[in-house]
């Protein structure tokens, strides 16, 4: 990292904290930067909790016929693991990065509604605590992260687990809707003078589109939760077959939320990648309008594919055909993105920083997850694999190999901006390789386990040929993965204390967040550079070769010339 300019040690680290010192300044803050950090820290906490739950499960599954956990405890753990990771780790960490960087990338002072932003965060935190209070109340929910009736209904779950589950998710869900509204309004009204919608950085684009997914999808979840609660607490009959209700209806409403939710958890990760890959390839993003357009296509298609989660619910051939075809279709815009990223790297001057290594591994792992995903669109294959470890492997390749890898890439990329210090590259490389090996050791083998018939969500399995050893490999991988998270946390702590000081723009990036100090002052910008194209800092650095001077910001035509003009 010799190309990083030296910056002297400031007298006061983290200047934005000194505005109002102390714990109260964090609790009472409405500043998007502090709230973004709170979101991220809280989701790291829940990531650790959910990770420990996963380790308990892997210990139980390490050997056949194990008795480490009781069946009930196992059910509670996989339910809480899934719910925690989805609602309390992945979603909020992406919202947190969005809250921190959307205003910075568009040159704004804060989000459109700072206090609403604060409300969203506190609803998320207390919703999460409410969910975890179920352990204190005596029984955690046991119905899986989608908590289907009748498993989640009164005669089958007598504790209060599902009630806390529904209440906790409703509280975080309302916070997420408010967050989604805030994203949309911020992106539409607070862009710096001169910045058109088609010039927003790609991460801001995905956060903006994510806002629509949040406001469109979360209300379905809230409706399903309200009905489930009415069933459990008020004796209603929505999903209770004894009273004439239909438990399949819950599945429809839940997945009308649940599939857009999948994209809520991946679109901002796509955005992070679209920032990291161009900067470390030293080329503008290939096909900006294709990346943005495919994001919008995903927004609409994601509401039309949900029933592919329900092929085993016997919907009939017409439904199966429609949703199978739609599910194959949604792979197209996602594939477009993969190709634009590869084309961005193609011929670029790639710098393999830790951030870029995570981004590159995303391309590989997410593609594997995407390919197994398309196989589910073929209904007979889905029937065969739906309730097996094949699905578990697929989903973790998309969520961990995809989203988590992108979030790590984004973290190494933006950490200097958020804290004023670089994350250590040495620890970072260890972190990357441990994550990459640990992840693949844990989950790749689960594809095979699933295909040979190991059912998911069962607390143990018989001692069949090969099952024990494959599960043991998976368990060892899980511990490696947990160790990699530890390495990451050590890296963060060490770098915060004595990491290299970061300059304003350590990666020589082009978007507006790098135009201010690291970390940014409370008001974000003293002065904005003129914005005439998609890369204002490039324009500033190369006044004779500004993006807007060409008729089209088309890397196809200008990629070669452009590269030769830099470095």
């Amino acid at each position, binding site marked *: 990292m010799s190309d990083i300019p030296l910056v002297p040690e400031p007298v006061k680290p983290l200047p934005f904290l000194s505005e109002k010192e102390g714990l109260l300044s964090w609790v009472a803050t409405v500043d998007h930067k502090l709230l973004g950090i709170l979101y991220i820290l809280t989701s790291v906490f829940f990531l650790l909790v959910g990770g420990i739950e996963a380790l308990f499960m892997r210990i139980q599954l390490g050997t056949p016929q194990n008795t480490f956990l009781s069946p009930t405890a196992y059910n509670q753990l996989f339910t809480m693991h899934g719910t925690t990771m989805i609602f309390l780790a992945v979603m909020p960490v992406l919202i947190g990065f969005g809250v921190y960087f959307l205003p910075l990338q568009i040159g704004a002072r804060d989000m459109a509604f700072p206090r609403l932003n604060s409300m969203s965060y506190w609803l998320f935190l207390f919703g999460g605590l409410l969910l975890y209070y179920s352990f204190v109340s005596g029984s955690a929910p046991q119905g899986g992260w989608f908590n289907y009736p009748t498993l989640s209904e009164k005669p089958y779950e007598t504790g209060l687990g599902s009630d806390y589950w529904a209440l906790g998710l409703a509280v975080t869900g309302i916070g997420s809707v408010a967050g989604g509204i805030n994203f949309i309004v911020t992106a539409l009204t607070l862009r710096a003078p001169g910045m058109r919608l088609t010039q927003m950085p790609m991460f801001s684009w995905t956060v903006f589109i994510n806002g629509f997914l949040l406001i469109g999808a979360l209300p379905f979840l809230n*409706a399903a939760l309200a009905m489930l609660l*009415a069933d459990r607490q008020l004796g209603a*009959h929505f999903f209770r077959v004894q009273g004439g209700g239909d438990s399949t209806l819950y599945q429809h409403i839940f997945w009308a939320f649940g599939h857009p939710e999948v994209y809520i958890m991946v679109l901002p990760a796509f955005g992070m990648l679209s920032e990291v890959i161009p900067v470390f390839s030293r080329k503008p993003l290939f096909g900006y309008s294709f990346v943005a357009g495919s994001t919008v296509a995903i927004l609409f298609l994601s509401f039309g594919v949900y029933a592919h989660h329900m092929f085993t619910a016997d919907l009939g051939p017409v439904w199966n055909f429609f949703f199978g075809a739609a599910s194959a279709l949604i792979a197209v815009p996602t594939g477009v993105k993969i190709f634009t990223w590869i084309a961005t790297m193609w011929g670029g001057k790639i710098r393999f920083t830790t951030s870029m290594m995570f981004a590159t591994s995303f391309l590989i792992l997410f593609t594997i997850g995407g390919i197994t995903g398309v196989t589910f669109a073929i209904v007979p294959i889905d029937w065969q694999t739906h309730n097996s470890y094949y699905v578990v492997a697929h989903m973790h390749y998309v969520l961990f190999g995809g989203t988590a890898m992108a979030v790590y890439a984004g973290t190494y990329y933006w950490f200097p901006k958020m804290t004023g210090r670089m994350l250590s590259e040495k620890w970072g490389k260890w972190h990357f390789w441990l994550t990459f090996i640990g992840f693949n050791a844990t989950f790749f083998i689960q594809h095979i386990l699933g295909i040979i018939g190991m059912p998911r969500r069962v607390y143990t399995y018989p001692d069949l040929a090969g099952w024990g050893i494959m599960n043991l490999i998976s368990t060892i991988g899980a511990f490696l993965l947990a160790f990699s998270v530890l390495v990451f946390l050590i890296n963060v702590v060490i770098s915060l204390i004595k990491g290299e000081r970061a300059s304003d723009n350590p990666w020589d990036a082009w978007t507006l967040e790098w135009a201010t100090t690291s970390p940014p002052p409370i008001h974000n910008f003293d002065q904005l550079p003129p914005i005439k194209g998609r890369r204002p800092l490039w324009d500033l650095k190369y006044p004779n070769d500004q993006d807007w001077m060409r008729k089209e910001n088309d890397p196809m035509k200008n990629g070669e010339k452009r590269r030769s003009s830099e470095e």
Partner: protein
Amino acid sequence: MSTDAREARRAEMNLGKDATNARDMMAQNSQSPQTPFQKILLDPSKMLMVIFLLSELSFFGALITTYLYYQAGGIKGPNAKEALNFGQTAIFTAFLLGSSGTIFLADRALVKRNRRALVFWLVVTAVMGLIFIVGQGIEYSTLINDNITMSRNLFGTTFFTLTGFHGMHVIAGLLALSIMALLAALGDFDSGHSSALTAVSWYWHFVDVVWVILFTMIYVIPTFFG
């Protein structure tokens, strides 16, 4: 609190103020007259309400779909036609729909900078909404006396959930209207323009429109076409 102190407090609390600079500049830069769409786009509060109402549409959409789904499947036990009193609810409905008109008059008073008229129409709107809620309470107690409850059958389940959530939205609207009336009486809206007030009135119209749909679906169709 004196007017000065209130101004100072508002300035202090208005943290988003700086953030709106870019928007103001854009508004000044655009020379052409604004289309209604641009007017919404340039006002964060109104945009917030529009997007919030879109999300409400998803929520009520799910509940309404559930109601229709179970109606289509046939319901054992008392149903809308036997259980509900069309005439009584129609009267209370008239009050709710009328309140959409009175809040329109409040909007007009706002533009004309007539503080007394503004407060008057806001209070009238709130009172009419309150009458509707009282009517809903009377209807609920009659039904419960007839042993038609949430746990009786699928009609009870869907009816109470759907109208109950609508009722809660009306109550939230009543709170918002009361706050608006109070602020109007204190002179907050003398400038003749308030995004907050416009946003609340849009919310109130939305609650009315949802009720028109529910009333048609639950009362009108079963009574006359059932």
